[in-house]
Structures are given as structure tokens and as C-alpha cells.
């Protein structure tokens, strides 16, 4: 079974700090995603990566960056955390090209609070 692991379940940081959220998947999936989840807004895609060192900005990339140095690991970076980045962050992975309509597999999320 696919396992997507996010390193922290809860995180509290201060305004202006550089914050790293880590995600690891164990199924050799090419595609990985970072979402943020806010009440009433559903999930919004921040960044997407389709291979090592390859990334694409998506719907709400401002204030974020990502790193994918190894296939299994996808990191989300808050360059200078702000209170409006307080949210639940979800990582997901997806195999590429093997089957249309494959579901994405999600980690348990990191609930991040910026004080």
C-alpha cells in the first residue's frame, strides 16, 4: 500500500521564520503535490513536481517554494512565514502515465500555526 509520510503533524512557528515541511513517499511515484486546506475553500494546489528537480507553480505559490532533490522527497518551504500561512498542509503523490484516473495518495497533513 502506498505510504505518504509528512514529518510533522503539528508545527508552531513565528512570523518571519523560514519553515520547512517535509514529505516522503515510498512508491517511486513521479508526481508529487503540495496543497493547503482552509475551511470553506477546500484544497488549493500550491506546487507540483513531476520529477526530480522539476517543479511547477500552481494556484497559490506566492510566499512558498519547493525542493525535490530525490524522487521520494518533496519539501515545501515558507521563505518568511506570515500569519496568513496558518493552515493545514497536505502532500500527495501520483504515479505518472501508468493508468488514467489513478487516485492521488495523501499524507496525514501538517497543521501549521504561525504566531
Amino acid at each position, binding site marked *: 500500500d502506498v505510504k505518504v509520510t509528512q514529518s510533522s*503533524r503539528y508545527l508552531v512557528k513565528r512570523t518571519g521564520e523560514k519553515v520547512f515541511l517535509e514529505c516522503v513517499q515510498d512508491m517511486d511515484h513521479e508526481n508529487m503535490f503540495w496543497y493547503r486546506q482552509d475551511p470553506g475553500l*477546500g484544497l488549493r494546489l500550491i506546487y507540483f513536481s513531476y520529477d526530480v528537480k522539476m517543479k511547477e507553480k500552481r494556484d497559490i505559490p506566492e510566499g512558498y517554494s519547493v525542493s525535490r532533490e530525490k524522487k521520494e522527497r518533496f519539501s515545501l518551504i515558507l521563505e518568511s512565514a506570515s500569519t496568513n500561512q496558518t493552515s493545514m498542509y497536505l502532500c500527495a503523490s501520483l504515479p505518472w502515465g501508468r493508468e488514467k484516473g489513478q487516485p492521488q495518495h495523501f499524507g496525514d497533513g501538517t497543521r501549521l500555526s504561525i504566531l
Partner: protein
Amino acid sequence: AQSVAQPEDQVNVAEGNPLTVKCTYSVSGNPYLFWYVQYPNRGLQFLLKYITGDNLVKGSYGFEAEFNKSQTSFHLKKPSALVSDSALYFCAVRDIMNTGFQKLVFGTGTRLLVSP
């Protein structure tokens, strides 16, 4: 762009009664539709999907969904609700990004509360 709408923020149902969580979609072309469930403080778990074929799709935990092309709907159903079904449910549709890769577009979620 592809989109889905979940018109109800919350659905309340008594245990043992049938439940329906509504989803409508707007797509160009044939839709690839998904339902996910999120239990408290957890990530999303895949329940079922519609790609093609039978309009009634069966999934995990006794859930099923009915694809209706004329009404552009993909409602999630279960014949007999359990208290443990209480969770947040998301409908999603596959979208193709301008680079050719696929992503999911999610609805805003519907909270299901099943009372004993």
C-alpha cells in the same frame, strides 16, 4: 477549467438511514471524478472514482456514487449510515494543466454528521 461544486456545507443523518452527499461538476470533455474522505486530523483517503462505464460506482466502506451526465452530478451515497462515517467529504475532478500533467480540482467539502 474543470470545477466541482458541493452545495451543502453539512449533512446530518441518523444512524441506519441512507445518506447522500451531493456533487455537481462542470467540465469540457469526459469527466474523471473522485470522492475522498477526511477523518479528523488525518489526510484524505480515496473512496471511489468514475472514469467510464457503469453509472453506479462502488467504493470503500460501503459507499457508492451515481454518475448522472444529464444532471452533471456525481452524488455519494450509502444505504445505511454509521456513526463512524462522520467525516469531511470531498468531491474532485481531474484537470489537465497547460503543461499536460494532470491535477485534481477539489470541491469545498461537505461535513457529514451521523447521529446515534
